[in-house]
């Protein structure tokens, strides 16, 4: 039976089964792990291989130059490059999370490569101290590295995205440590990386130093009886597996306070490699033997006649040899329940039922009846087991079993099977040897589809990435964008127009994609014309305009910015051109564009006065220069330094006169010119007045106010002089003088003034001035002289003379007026009755 053969491949460690399916026969040739240094990325990532320069090896038919070769996990060659870097031996090599290969050499230089074996500039350095004292060893984690120098100093780069070398605390040791391990920053209390160094010779001084940025701790002094030979920290940073001086495997907490497991290993020699397999077993590798130890029970041993390399994953260990890639993992519970020999679990019976069904045996039904009540659980186990399977035909069988069982079960979540099919399709497609990413389902879930797609496009597997993201209903923008950029980089020989068509054809697949970003990439690759063609297709002005600027298309940028109505973009272009061009050329550019010009003027009005004048002069807007000068004249007036002293208003008046002349240059501004002239004249007169009156109250008041002030001061001659100088009309003169006299309550002078001649605007000003000053007696003098009876009536009413008001109103024969007046007198019964009678009398002739 098939079941038997499946379980036959398993090994039992204590109470758990382990299996080790082959993922790939390696597609590479002539790679001998024994002669090479190797770096393998977790999550089925790529492999980097380079001849180990610390070993003496025999060169067969190959060049003496070393080559760095990159392969997928299936041994598919990805890229290679000749290694000819100075800086001494290659000390360590590792992949970061985003698949950058980090190579640390002796002098502390770090070379970085992408998956296409392109060197990423610039090279990094661990610093001067490393350069001087040589790097002896290094340890990597996700995105960081720690190096120890031959002087036993530690340096760390915590994140290659922000590569800054930090020196850790001095461990204070003379001898190099036996071995080194790191606890990732995310698992330490301080949030910084913690380095574990095994030091000491004998029982008394053996310890593990935990080195951080700001201190060193001695751990395990109580526990250790000799130095540790090899250490490795578990994935979650909690546990430390180590090999002791006397040939034992020791598993402790990572702060070395508690021993979890201690087991003899029958070998005093430390293993070459030590690795965690998941969280519950440790692998030790000597020469030709791989030993797997669990918490209890007999260890499992595997024999290898060729060198191997252990690649820890979150749920197992990949074992790489010259010829194959295997995956050692604990057999999942669901798989165990189906395939253990003699299993009678519902899932096993369901699997068996399918077998009978396929052979048209009635036993199928019998099996189903047996497990009817636990059918959902059996289906679930089958689906789960299928997910964990690498073998496609077994996946299929398990899924068929699940779907067979589901048919008889009403309350099973139907989309579980569909979902699993989806995941498996994706997994199988990336596992194919051509792609070579042997992800387990657990790894896939941890990695997330999003990152997987990122890795695929990074490896230039765009089509697969596009299909997967489409299949999973994810946004394809990131794939298409990357493709477009990669396409541009790779297509130096294709002419712009052709390449544009190729790109547009794909870019249109994705709505809302940023054409500007693609165009920016084209520009970076020196394809300015292509960039210009691409950016035309960008609908978002906010993206389009900055790019147009960066590719030197300022004029188009200005047009686009203006069209879209976003003044912020117009300013962006404006400042860009301003900085780039000569003032005159700049003026010419903006003069032609109304919005740009107005915005420039608005900004310059606030902050660049002189430059604005230059602009107006260059464009012949003399009146605007004149306004600016005129405005400056006030600023000058406010400035006490400029206005006091005897030549006092000299500079100010000069400015105004300059403005006057500029206004005079254009016919349309005669009025302004005249006004400026008058203003200058007024300032002179006001200054003289201030000198003669010794009162600083004239400057910057208006002509009318100056006249009023003169009259109030009793200086009638000066008032008349101002009047004639500025040809003040008689009308205005009368209002001003009347109110000024009323202000100082000079009623005699007022009366005299009223009799000078017949006032050109009648006696209303006199009446109003008296009423406002609350001088009834004075008002009565002038009211009778008012020509209009209505005005007379209202004036009487305002000073409370009802009878007179009524008389006047009746003269005017105005009923509406009477009504209104009556309202004003509503408190006064006698008065209001007068109005009533009058109104009655009025309405008669109106009615007849």
């Amino acid at each position, binding site marked *: 039976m098939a079941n038997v053969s499946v379980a036959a491949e398993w090994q039992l460690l204590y109470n758990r089964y382990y299996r080790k399916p082959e993922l790939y026969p390696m597609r590479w040739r002539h790679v001998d792990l024994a002669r090479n240094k190797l770096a393998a990325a977790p999550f089925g990532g790529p492999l980097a291989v380079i001849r180990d320069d610390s070993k003496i090896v025999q060169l067969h038919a190959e060049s003496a130059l070393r080559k760095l070769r990159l392969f997928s996990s299936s041994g598919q060659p990805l890229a290679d490059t000749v290694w000819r870097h100075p800086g001494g031996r290659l000390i360590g090599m590792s992949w970061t999370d985003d698949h950058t290969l980090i190579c640390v050499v002796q002098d502390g230089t770090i070379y970085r490569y992408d998956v296409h074996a392109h060197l990423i500039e610039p090279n990094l350095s661990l610093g001067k101290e490393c350069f001087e004292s040589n790097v002896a060893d290094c340890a990597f984690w996700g995105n960081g590295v720690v190096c120890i120098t031959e002087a036993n100093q530690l340096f760390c780069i915590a994140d290659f995205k922000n590569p800054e070398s930090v020196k850790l605390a001095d461990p204070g040791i003379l001898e190099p440590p036996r071995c080194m391990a790191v606890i990732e920053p995310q698992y330490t209390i301080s949030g910084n990386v913690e380095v574990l160094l095994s030091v000491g010779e004998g029982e008394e001084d053996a310890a593990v130093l935990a080195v951080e940025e700001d201190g060193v701790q001695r751990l395990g002094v109580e526990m250790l009886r000799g130095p540790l030979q090899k250490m490795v920290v578990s994935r979650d940073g909690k546990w430390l597996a180590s090999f002791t001086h006397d040939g034992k495997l020791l598993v402790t907490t990572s702060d070395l306070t508690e021993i979890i497991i201690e087991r003899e290993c029958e070998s005093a020699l430390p293993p070459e490699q030590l690795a965690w397999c998941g969280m519950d077993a440790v692998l030790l590798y000597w020469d030709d033997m791989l030993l797997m130890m669990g918490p209890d029970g007999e260890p499992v041993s595997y024999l290898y006649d060729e060198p191997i390399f252990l690649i820890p994953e979150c749920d197992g260990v990949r074992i790489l040899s010259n010829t194959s890639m295997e995956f050692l993992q604990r057999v999942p519970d669901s798989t165990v329940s189906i395939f253990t020999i003699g299993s009678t679990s519902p899932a096993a019976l369901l699997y068996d039922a399918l077998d009978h069904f396929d052979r048209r045996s009635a036993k199928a039904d019998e099996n189903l009846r047996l497990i009817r009540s636990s059918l959902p659980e059996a289906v679930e186990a089958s689906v789960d087991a299928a997910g964990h399977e690498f073998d496609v035909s077994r996946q299929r069988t398990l899924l068929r079993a699940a779907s067979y069982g589901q048919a008889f079960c009403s309350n099973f979540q139907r989309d579980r099977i569909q979902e699993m099919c989806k995941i498996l399709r994706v997994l199988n497609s990336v596992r194919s040897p051509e792609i070579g990413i042997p992800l387990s389902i657990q790894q896939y879930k941890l990695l997330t589809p999003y990152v997987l797609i990122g890795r695929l496009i990074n490896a230039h597997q765009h089509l697969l990435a596009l299909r997967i993201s489409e299949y999973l209903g994810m946004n394809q923008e990131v794939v298409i964008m990357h493709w477009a950029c990669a396409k541009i980089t790779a297509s130096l020989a294709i002419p712009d127009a052709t390449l544009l068509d190729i790109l547009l054809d794909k870019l249109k697949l994705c709505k809302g994609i940023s054409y500007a970003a693609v165009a920016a990439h084209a520009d970076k690759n020196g394809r300015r014309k292509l960039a210009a063609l691409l950016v035309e297709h960008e*609908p*978002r*002005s*906010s993206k389009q305009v900055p790019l147009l600027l960066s590719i030197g298309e300022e004029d188009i940028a200005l047009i686009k910015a203006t069209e*879209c*109505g*976003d*003044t*912020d973009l117009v*300013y*962006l272009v404006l*400042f860009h051109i301003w900085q780039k061009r000569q003032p005159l050329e700049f003026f010419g550019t903006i003069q032609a564009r*109304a*919005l740009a*010009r*107005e*915005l420039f*003027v*608005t*900004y310059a009005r*606030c*902050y660049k006065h002189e430059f604005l004048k230059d602009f107006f002069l260059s464009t012949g807007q003399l009146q605007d220069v004149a*306004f600016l000068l*005129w*405005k400056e004249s*006030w600023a000058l*007036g*406010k400035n006490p330094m400029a206005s006091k002293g005897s030549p006092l208003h000299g500079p100010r008046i000069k400015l105004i006169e300059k403005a006057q002349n500029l206004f005079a240059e254009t016919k349309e501004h005669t*009025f*302004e010119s005249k*006004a*400026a002239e*008058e*203003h200058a004249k*007024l300032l002179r007169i006001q200054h003289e007045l201030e000198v003669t009156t010794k009162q600083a109250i004239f400057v*910057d*008041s*208006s*002509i*009318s*106010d100056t006249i009023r002030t003169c009259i109030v001061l009793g200086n009638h001659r000066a008032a008349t002089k101002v009047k004639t100088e*500025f040809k*003040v009309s008689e*009308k*205005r003169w009368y*209002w*001003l003088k009347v*109110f000024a006299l009323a202000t100082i309550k000079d009623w005699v002078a007022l009366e005299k003034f009223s009799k000078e001649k017949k006032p050109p*605007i009648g006696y209303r000003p006199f009446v109003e001035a008296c009423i406002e000053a609350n001088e009834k007696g004075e008002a009565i003098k002038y009211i009778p002289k008012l020509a209009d009876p209505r005005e007379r009536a*209202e004036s009487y009413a*305002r000073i409370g003379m009802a009878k007179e008001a009524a008389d006047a109103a009746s003269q005017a024969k105005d009923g509406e007026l009477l009504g209104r007046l009556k309202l004003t007198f509503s408190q006064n019964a006698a008065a209001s009755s007068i109005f009533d009678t009058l109104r009655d009398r009025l309405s008669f002739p109106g009615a007849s």
Partner: protein
Amino acid sequence: MAQIPNLDNAPLNLTAIREQSQKELIHILKHVRGKKCLVIDPKLGDSLSLIIQTSSLKEHGAELRHLSAEPVQTDCTKVVYLVRAQLKLMRFICSSIHNDVSNGLQREYYVYFVPRRTVVCEKVLEEEKVHHMVTIGEYPLYVVPLDEDVLSFELDLSYKECEVDGDTSSLWHIAKAIHKLEFSFGVIPNVRAKGRASVRVADILNRMQAEEPVNSSDMAVPEINTVILLDREVDMVTPLCSQLTYEGLLDEFLHINNGSVELDASIMGLQQEGKKTKVPLNSSDKLLKEIRDLNFEVVVQILRQKATSMKQDYTDMTTTTQTVSDLKDFVKKLNSLPEITRHINLAQHLSTFTSKPSFLGQLDMEHTIIEAQSYDICFDYIEELIHKQEPLTTVLRLLILFSITNSGLPKKQFDYFRRELLHSYGFEHIATLNNLEKAGLFKKQDSKSNWLTIKRTLQLVVEDVDTANPSDIAYVFSGYAPLSIRLVQHAIRSGWRPVEETLKLLPGPHLETRRGGFSNSPSFDTLSGVSTSIAKVPDGRRALVLVVFVGGVTFAEISALRFLSSQESMAYDLIIATTKIVNGQTLLETFMEKLG
């Protein structure tokens, strides 16, 4: 006193908009950890008081200051500037930071721009060498709900910037604000616009939809059916006339600032001599809601009735024996007593202004100018105002009204008035006059006036208005129907087509379109001109029309729109958005520029 208006009865979910703005502001405060000094530009502060209580700002560790020319005085080491992206405000920030530097104070500075950071402001920070010292952020406040049917973009300078400076930044802002509404309430299918700025806003709005589309398939029926955009430039007559509605008068004389007026406590009958008190004015006040849009004459009568009936009830209460339920009713009525008292106080205060002969004279003159029959009388009246040196804004209001209704003044008279103004008020006002001329508000006559035609065809002057039971919007100005609202009335009823000839007489182009995926809908075919096949929202509510005033709107106009909306024949609910609520004076003040 709670100033934040109650928006529960709004036809749109405005509460959500306000809550979003609250959240974003709190987020900023949380982002800057610990104690900080929050320096707000004063005008923005006014707007924010409609969004969030100052107490909740303080809860998040903010010490509040107003931005001014004076350096910020605080013990906090973190200073957060929350400012509108305006050039002149940058100067204050820079000088304050420079002051700290020269005093050896080390502080962390944050500048949050409202509604977004701009290149030009950052340029100023760069030039003043403070850009590297500040962390820059954005507070995307594009719209502030003033009341359950009024939104404000809080762009008080919009009109002046567009017409005088040629700076159209505010138009982008308006379009962005509408577009943001569309993200919440769906793409607005119908657009009608009149005026240069409005047509531009419609254009930018379409671009935004193309660049950053609102997914219309997400929302079955858009909540807003139509947007009507109207330039202030199209109707400058209305805001210059004295408003005669209750709320309009309050604004004219007491200046309503963001939904409240500030006046002497003694006027409100409070025993605090010399102190000022703030009176909130929004729909949360039920009595105000009832009377705000009525002609002031009527308001006085209503208040008198209410007071009398209250008094009657009280007398009944003291004289005869009452059942418990009667008592209950009476107590319920008593609850409205504070509101009645408040408005009686306000109305009484207003009467002191409205009964002045100068005000009556001014009203009289406004009507004479609008009638446009007696040119010389108007001329003489304005001339006399200048000679008497009446307040400049009062003079300019009438002068501009006069100029607009005559399409400008003959050159000789234009120059005469300008000269008299400069002589009477000072030469520094040349800048104001220049601004007004640029904006076309006070200018030389360049064509024959078509005001009479406009007035006649749109029936702007209505005789015999019954202010108590109005049948037309003309009641808000006691006989003059605001031109802007007449246009809106037409736009809602029948679209632009029937009034096209009249529209051509008014400044700026006009536009009428259907947008987005809606152009294919069957109703499009029947649209042509006589459209408004009323799209009923399924749940029985009336469809919504958003009326946007680019350049400001007056309370009287809002009242007129509410009046329209309350008519039975009206198929829509109206919601009003404006760059700012204005009146003749505040609008003119934006144009005033003293060189001195």
